[in-house]
């Protein structure tokens, strides 16, 4: 179960690193990552889980990163098989709930990267919420799987 152990480790690390932030806010970010962009691509997405343990609804209203010239919040819709990507004003992080930024859904879009990102690089991303809270996370760059998991047909 190395995968399970890895997940626990990631969770532990995430929990530890966000404890400071949690002291003054009810927002926690789990498992952030940036997808390794193919060469030639000018954009990529950052994904993460934002948890709100507080009793007030929050919204992610903006994101910034020194890694890209432009950073936007985006969502995807599948409309009759046509994939539509749209910039959104904000992403809801409801009270006692979580927002999942994941492939095919909400993501932080990094546009016009200043330098080509490599697998294992760390990308700082500052998340800005509607109450003015700012938090900077460090998202590792991960490559998409290009081979099928062994033993899993």
């Amino acid at each position, binding site marked *: 179960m190395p995968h399970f152990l890895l997940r626990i480790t990631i969770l532990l690390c995430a929990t530890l690193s966000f404890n400071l932030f949690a002291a003054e806010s009810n927002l926690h970010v789990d498992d952030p990552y940036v*997808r390794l962009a193919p060469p030639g691509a000018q*954009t990529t997405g950052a994904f993460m889980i934002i948890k709100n343990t507080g009793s007030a609804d929050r919204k992610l209203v903006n994101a910034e990163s020194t890694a890209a010239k432009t950073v936007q919040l985006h969502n995807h819709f599948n409309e009759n098989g046509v994939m539509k*990507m749209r910039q959104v004003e904000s992403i809801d992080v409801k009270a006692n709930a979580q927002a999942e930024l994941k492939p095919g859904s909400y993501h932080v879009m990094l*546009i016009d990267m200043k330098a080509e990102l490599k697998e294992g690089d760390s990308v700082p991303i500052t998340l800005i919420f509607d109450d003015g809270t700012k938090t900077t996370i460090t998202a590792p760059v991960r490559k998409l799987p290009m081979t*099928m998991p062994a033993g899993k047909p």
Partner: protein
Amino acid sequence: MDRKTIWIALIAMLAGVLVWLAFFWTPDGTQSLAQNKTHAQLQQAETPAGGDFTLQSPDGAVSLADQRGKVVLLYFGYTFCPDVCPTSLSTLAQALSALTPDELAKVKSWFISVDPERDTMDVLKVYAPFFHPTIVGISGSGEQVAQVAKLYGARYMKQKPDANGLYSVDHSSFIYVVAPDGKLAASLPHGTPPQQIVDMIRSQLKP
């Protein structure tokens, strides 16, 4: 526009979002369920005719007519696409990696850019093989690409550029499977698991 009209428009928009949430939104954690559903419903979307075409690759013109005897996989997308295209191409790469070298020699995979304006041959040359060394990025003039897309029932629409001149392109996300006889055998919807792509390729390679 007076205030009332704005309110009505706002309410209509909210109603639209609610309908979308109710019918199309897949809540978190249902990924595997959704995939099973795709499995069961692996329908041949519409039934476009398919057909031969010639487009440009970084190494010169490529024609579907020259690929008889091979299974050709087509995917329409664009490199500015941060999520949908990489996801599809990584799924395709996973399927290709599962093939034997003999099988792989009888398979061609073409990534057709629907954004030739930005996706120059230089961009396509480095972009497509990132996913799998056998995937080739091809494109042509806007008109040529539109004709090919029409043959296969692929749809796309360039969106308005934002303040920075950046634009996205809405596009359908299918992997089209062209049989060794050149006929369109299947249109695999977005999210089709790699193993199903492998099965489809193998079923088409059978004599």
